[in-house]
């Protein structure tokens, strides 16, 4: 009864639409035209919004932010695959998907201009706000999913995180928790090749990130994350698995961060221009556009019209953002607790006194 193999595992990789625009017709999810167009628009909006933010940041009109350019297919196709009842739990690099979930861009800008008001009040439903502590949100996703299961709601949770996030303890605890209770969580790893300056190969010694899920017996797949059709298909399947009580799924979406980590970062310090140039050839938008053209539902004219409409939309949002500058100075005191407490209110009074004196003196 010596040594014997008791368990086998494998990781497979899925690509539907490659960088050259070749399509695997069998796997094509055959989305209706209006969905395809919505997806393309979403990705284009994400790209354009990113570019605008870069401008605003350089002009000092907003603060540091993490651009998403190159990764639009992941969050946008996932957002398309989700219903309103599903939960979108992001980190900080899902601009396209967030906007598709109806988060107003002007609020996104308010937030990135340093005001918590950017997280407040908009009715984007089940989209959780930014999460900066890497991997922490994976646990929130598991908790939300527990609540959905507990309440017997037909709803799944799609949570996004990077390749770097897979090294954190919270990531591990979240996958285990989701697996133990068979929770409807779709773990979407945006493997963009880098965690700031750490390349994927130094982040972990594993041959894939998809295989991380084997530790928990969670169904897993690696996909080309710049292939919006593959993202859509796998996220959708995973959501349905969640609805059916089959538990969590894991998706490694291989993509690339085409720009800097954040606007405070200088990627030249750790990667070559060549690598980046090469990566631009895999741009998720280019191949998707070709796919639409091949289907005969797209042409240069429509492209121009779309660009114009997006520009107007973004202009409008920036205009709203610029007009929202009347923020209460003492807002931080408002929500320390759900009810007022003497110690906070005394400090609020001190705060006002100080501000008044400051104005008076300065």
């Amino acid at each position, binding site marked *: 009864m010596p040594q014997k193999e008791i368990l086998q595992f494998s990781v497979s990789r899925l690509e539907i639409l490659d960088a050259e625009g070749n399509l695997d017709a069998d796997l094509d999810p055959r989305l209706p035209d209006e969905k395809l167009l919505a997806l393309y628009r979403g990705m284009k909006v994400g790209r354009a919004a990113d570019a605008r933010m870069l401008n605003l940041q350089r002009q000092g009109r907003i603060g540091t932010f993490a651009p998403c350019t190159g990764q639009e297919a992941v969050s946008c196709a996932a957002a398309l695959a989700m219903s309103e009842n599903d939960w979108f739990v992001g980190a900080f690099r899902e601009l396209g998907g967030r906007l598709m979930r109806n988060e107003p861009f002007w609020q996104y800008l308010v937030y990135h201009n340093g005001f918590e008001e950017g*997280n*407040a009040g908009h009715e984007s439903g089940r989209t*959780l706000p930014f999460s900066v502590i890497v991997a*922490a949100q994976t*646990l929130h996703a*598991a908790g939300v999913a527990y609540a959905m299961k507990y309440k017997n709601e037909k709803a799944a949770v799609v949570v996004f995180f990077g390749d770097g996030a897979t090294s954190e303890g919270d990531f591990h*605890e*979240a996958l285990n928790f989701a697996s133990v209770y068979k929770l409807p969580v779709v773990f979407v790893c945006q493997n963009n090749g880098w965690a700031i300056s750490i390349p994927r190969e130094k982040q972990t010694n594993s041959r894939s990130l998809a295989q991380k899920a084997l530790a928990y017996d969670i169904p897993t797949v690696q996909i080309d994350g710049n292939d919006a059709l593959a993202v859509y298909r796998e996220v959708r399947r995973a959501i349905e698995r969640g609805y059916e009580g089959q538990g969590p799924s894991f998706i490694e979406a291989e993509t690339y961060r085409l720009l800097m980590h954040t606007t405070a970062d200088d990627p030249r310090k750790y990667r070559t221009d060549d690598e980046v140039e090469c990566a631009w050839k895999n741009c998720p938008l280019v191949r998707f556009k070709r796919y639409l053209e091949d289907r005969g539902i797209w042409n240069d004219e429509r492209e121009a019209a779309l660009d114009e409409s997006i520009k107007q939309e973004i202009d409008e949002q920036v205009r709203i953002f610029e007009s929202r500058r009347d923020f209460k100075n003492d*807002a931080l005191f408002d929500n320390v607790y759900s009810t007022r407490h003497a110690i906070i209110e005394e400090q609020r009074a001190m705060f006002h006194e100080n501000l008044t004196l400051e104005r008076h003196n300065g």
Partner: protein
Amino acid sequence: MAKLNMVQALTLAMDQEMERDPAVVLLGEDIGPDEGVFRVTAGLWQKYGDERVIDTPLAESAIVGTSIGMAFAGLRPVGEIQFSGFSMLMVAQLEAYASRTRSRTFGRWTAPIVIRMPYGGGVRAMEHHSESREATFAHFPGVKVVIPSSPRNARALLAAAIRDDDPVVFMEPKRSYRAFKEEVPDEPELIPIGRAQVVQEGADLTVISWGAMMRPTLEAVEMVQLERGASIEVIDLLTLAPLDHTTFVESVKKTGRCVVVQEAPRNLGIASEVIALLNEGAFFHLEAPIRRVTNYDVITPYFGRELMYIPSVGRIKRGIEETLDT
């Protein structure tokens, strides 16, 4: 009305809150069939089942992190950390999310979770099982920290914590778990969080304490009163964050003298903040330095020596006497 010890009173609170509100769920290590290592969840798994009394994998960050997610989605999770010594593993989730989600989203999202944990020494436990870390949690803006001192206030405070819309770290003095019984009303009872209790009024000196230190404190106070006929006011803080400074500032304005009794090490404990607030609010009424009777700034001693380090009745008594004599 039944005579309950603190463990039973806590169980009662959870039971009644679970009956009242189906959104209340419990999660933690060994809280199901095992009923918690101190049996605080006795009978609840049997009554409410796996889905509401959740035995979790061994992962403290997960207990709090998933609680936060559950709360986002409308549940009222009550997480148990088996001993406060393991609570450091979840402070990141507490500090970065539970404490500030309300503020950073203007109330669009909130994290009404309770994190229960036994704390403190005196029960000959293993290493890392006897810490008093309330100050660590209390230092994070947005977190409420509550510590009961008797069966009755434990029940009423835990019920209030579960109904509270903010994250509450609920620390249970394990030395008091079974130390004594008290009448606890059958009907749900609430004590508002954020208020200290004047346990007895007095004119000559104010003693401030909380949790497991209340019992030796009251004993010492009684001795001093008997021996010297002094009139001593005693305050049980009950909530460590946010502090009810009005109550103790008013008290010390009246008495002019104060002793703070704390089980935790001295440096940066709750007593430090109490003194700072008294310095600000009652300075011109102080007739003597405020005295701290605390553990020392050493690691929490393993049980062979712990009782020499935790404030004893004698030390508290001397602290009061010396302050009266200054």
